């Protein structure tokens, strides 16, 4: 008799994403396994399988002989309907066992608008949503990832959070769990012991108190819990785990290529960028290691594309020698090498031409702001001259299309800054007219604007978001200023970004809102097909919470911040100094020009920042 899952599969889109069985997936004998982990990604297979962090930790966990880590993704809407209609609980891809049978349920959370998927996946698994309702040692739910630097909106649902890079701490957490399970501890004993692992934050060990004005006024650690929990980093990044024998999906995913992580951290310090501060300090891999990893991964996967992964490719000191050696390997094998997030400097221009020998990729810039004054205020150290010179070189080399990314609503932004975007675009068009060598297809400039979202652990963490109506006004102002047929303008709708702002800087009281929103049908919020703003607005109303209290709120310098129990290594004093610099439109040099004492180097006890 055909199983229920297989009977459902003919009725859903892209069934291959629900069955596993890909090349290099890991299957273990249950009899040899002491701890089973369901590693959940709160979005679809195509998104989750593109996530490097998940691939690393899948390898790290499965390297342990008595641990079996399997993958779980959010089902698309058609599959969810079938599952609900047939009472089929959510399953893990490797064993097809239901998630409820697992010891540990781990999530990696990189985006605020996936919170509804987390609750939905727990509900589809038949697991109680609230940590307090899960009383046993089975189904311990924890999470890591960028969003867990302010995990408070999710505090009701998770037993603990693993902060920072998980290569080492995940192994230590699994050691504690293995002991707990073997010795039959109760859940509180397990959590107390897990909290001793550096980087583990147990939200139930902290009481959040609110004042009569509704603001958070005090965070009280209970039972001797540490006042601060500091994120973990990998000390020896060069020799840390790299998934060279990685799962090769049998169906198309978003980033269908080998990912080579060249360094962690960022020397730049763009003031809006959470990753730029949270992933410090800067730690590179050596060229030898990277070339070896690239060859191993390409040979094992059969991929025909490899991309360098980091926050700012151009800042890798050995980029010239690295790309030379990679091209030596890739070019004769017709493997495409792509170099994202290049800066618009001289060196990168030469590199761009060199890499083009395999395949010509698009030209993309993220100036983020339209005027030099605002770029200085956000510390985005790219000049108009650099952009125009790079465009000129590219147009001369036969390129004819450019993509530009900007943000609207950045702190201190005026209409002049908004119109500055259009000015820059027209200057690029002028450069094309003067310098282009290939005019047949005309020049195509795509401009995209996103709505600025203030994030924790950035110099703008204290700042309010502008109202959605004001964002829309600025967006229309810009649209009217760009009337050339060569320009294609796309903008993000403000509603999603408004919710993102609420959740990014939210506190524990938002747990009820998320739960209510999911009850109202919120899911797959990052997908236009499913995003339902009204489901969220009704949830805020039902809970008596005003989203503007979070999105529109400007924190004072000494306000209690919901995320202040957590440290990413960068000091609050440094962030505040950067905040003040922004309002003076003063730039801060990058880490290599001068160390500004952010504090992240103190995490790096076994090495020195790559200055």
């Amino acid at each position: 008799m055909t199983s229920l899952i297989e009977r459902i599969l003919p009725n859903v889109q892209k069934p291959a994403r629900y069955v596993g069985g890909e090349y290099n997936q890991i299957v273990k004998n249950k009899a040899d396994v002491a701890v089973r982990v369901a590693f959940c990604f709160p979005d679809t297979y195509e998104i989750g399988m593109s996530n490097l962090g998940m691939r690393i930790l899948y390898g790290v966990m499965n390297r342990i002989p008595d641990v079996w880590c399997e993958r779980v993704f959010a089902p698309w809407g058609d599959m969810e309907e079938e599952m609900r209609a047939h009472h089929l609980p959510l399953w893990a891809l490797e064993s097809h066992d239901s998630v409820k049978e697992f010891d540990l349920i781990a999530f990696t959370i990189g985006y605020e608008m996936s919170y509804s998927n987390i609750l939905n996946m727990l509900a589809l698994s038949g697991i109680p949503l609230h940590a307090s309702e899960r009383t046993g040692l089975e189904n311990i739910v924890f999470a890591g990832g960028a969003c867990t630097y302010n995990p408070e909106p999710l505090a009701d649902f998770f037993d603990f959070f693993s902060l920072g890079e998980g290569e080492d701490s995940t192994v230590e957490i699994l050691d504690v769990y293995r002991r707990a399970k073997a010795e039959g501890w109760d859940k509180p004993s397990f959590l107390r012991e897990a909290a001793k692992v550096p980087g583990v934050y147990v939200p139930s060990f902290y009481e959040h108190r609110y004042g009569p004005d509704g603001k958070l006024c005090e965070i009280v650690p209970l039972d001797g819990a540490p006042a601060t929990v500091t994120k973990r980093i990998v000390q020896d990044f060069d020799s840390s785990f790299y998934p060279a024998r990685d799962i090769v999906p049998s169906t198309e995913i978003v980033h269908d290529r080998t990912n080579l992580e060249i360094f962690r951290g960022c020397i730049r310090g763009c003031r809006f960028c959470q990753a730029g501060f949270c992933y410090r300090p800067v730690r590179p891999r050596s060229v030898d290691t990277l070339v070896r990893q690239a060859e191993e991964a390409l040979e094992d996967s059969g991929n025909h594309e490899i991309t360098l992964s980091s926050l700012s490719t151009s800042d890798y000191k050995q980029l010239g020698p690295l790309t030379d050696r990679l091209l030596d390997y890739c070019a004769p094998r017709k493997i495409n090498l792509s170099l994202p997030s290049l800066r618009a400097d001289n060196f990168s221009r030469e590199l761009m031409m060199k890499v083009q020998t395999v395949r010509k990729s698009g030209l993309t810039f993220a100036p983020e702001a339209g005027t030099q004054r605002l770029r200085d205020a956000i510390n985005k150290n790219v000049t108009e001259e650099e952009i125009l010179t790079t465009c000129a070189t590219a147009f001369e080399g036969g390129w004819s299309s450019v993509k530009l990314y900007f943000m609207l609503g950045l702190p201190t932004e005026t209409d002049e800054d908004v119109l500055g975007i259009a000015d820059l675009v027209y200057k690029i068009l002028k450069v094309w007219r003067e310098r282009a060598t290939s005019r047949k297809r005309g020049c195509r400039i795509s401009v995209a604007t996103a709505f600025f979202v203030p994030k924790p652990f950035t110099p703008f963490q204290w700042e309010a978001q502008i109202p959605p109506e004001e964002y829309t006004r600025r967006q229309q102002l810009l649209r009217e200023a760009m009337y050339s047929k060569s320009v294609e303008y796309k903008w993000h709708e403000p509603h999603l970004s408004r919710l993102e702002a609420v959740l990014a800087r939210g506190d524990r009281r938002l747990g009820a809102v998320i739960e209510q929103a999911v009850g109202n049908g919120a899911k797959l919020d990052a997908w236009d097909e499913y995003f339902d703003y009204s489901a969220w607005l009704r949830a805020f109303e039902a809970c008596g919470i005003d989203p503007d209290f979070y999105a529109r709120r400007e924190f004072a310098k000494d306000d209690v911040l919901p995320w202040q129990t957590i440290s990413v290594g960068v000091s609050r004093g440094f962030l505040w100094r950067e905040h003040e610099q922004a309002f003076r439109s003063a730039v801060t040099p990058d880490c290599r020009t001068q160390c500004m004492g952010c504090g992240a180097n103190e995490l790096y006890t076994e090495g020195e920042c790559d200055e």
Partner: protein
Amino acid sequence: MSRILFEKAGNGIWISHLDLMRVFQRAFRRAGLPLKHTQGFNPHAFVSIVLPLPVGTASRCELLDFELDPPETDLAALPDRLNRALPEGIHCLAAYDGGRKIRELCLLHTGITLEYDAGVPGGAPERIAALLNGSSVVVEKKSKNGPVETDIRPMIRSLAVSQPDGNTVVLDAVVCAQNPTLNPMLLPAAVALYLSADTPSFSSCRRLEVLDDSGQIFR
């Protein structure tokens, strides 16, 4: 041009045709067997699959044509090399040079399993055989311009119905493969349409053999 014979089973049946082309291209690379590519700005590999299977259908007789650069002399060792590089459910059975012209592939031998969770209704195999061996069987067939009414009976070359156990009916059918093509899943669809009391709880299909016009095995 060389050809491999492969089977699609288990989890592999859910891999779509386009995805399977990519799976094979990667598997050839992994196995150290470089495919010949077209010249030009966006080179693509010389691989093609004969008569792509619908998603969800198993098969033990799939054919893939390919060209290697440089050509591989030891084709006998190729199935093992590829199988080490293929995902679960996609399994290479043989490799050989040349092969017959695709247009000579005319017929599909398929097995269709009808599952009845509450037991096979009495007399169902006989009613199904009578229906599908009758003079005409008109069903709705998907086409580019929406559904059209089609008589599938002329496309069924032979049909045998059996009941291996109390919950299963098996249709053993030979149907047209090209010009026109009959999707074998239209047979259980016809059962549901004309014999609603005999509608199965679930049906699935497995391609058993590809044949030429005279019923000889096509390779």
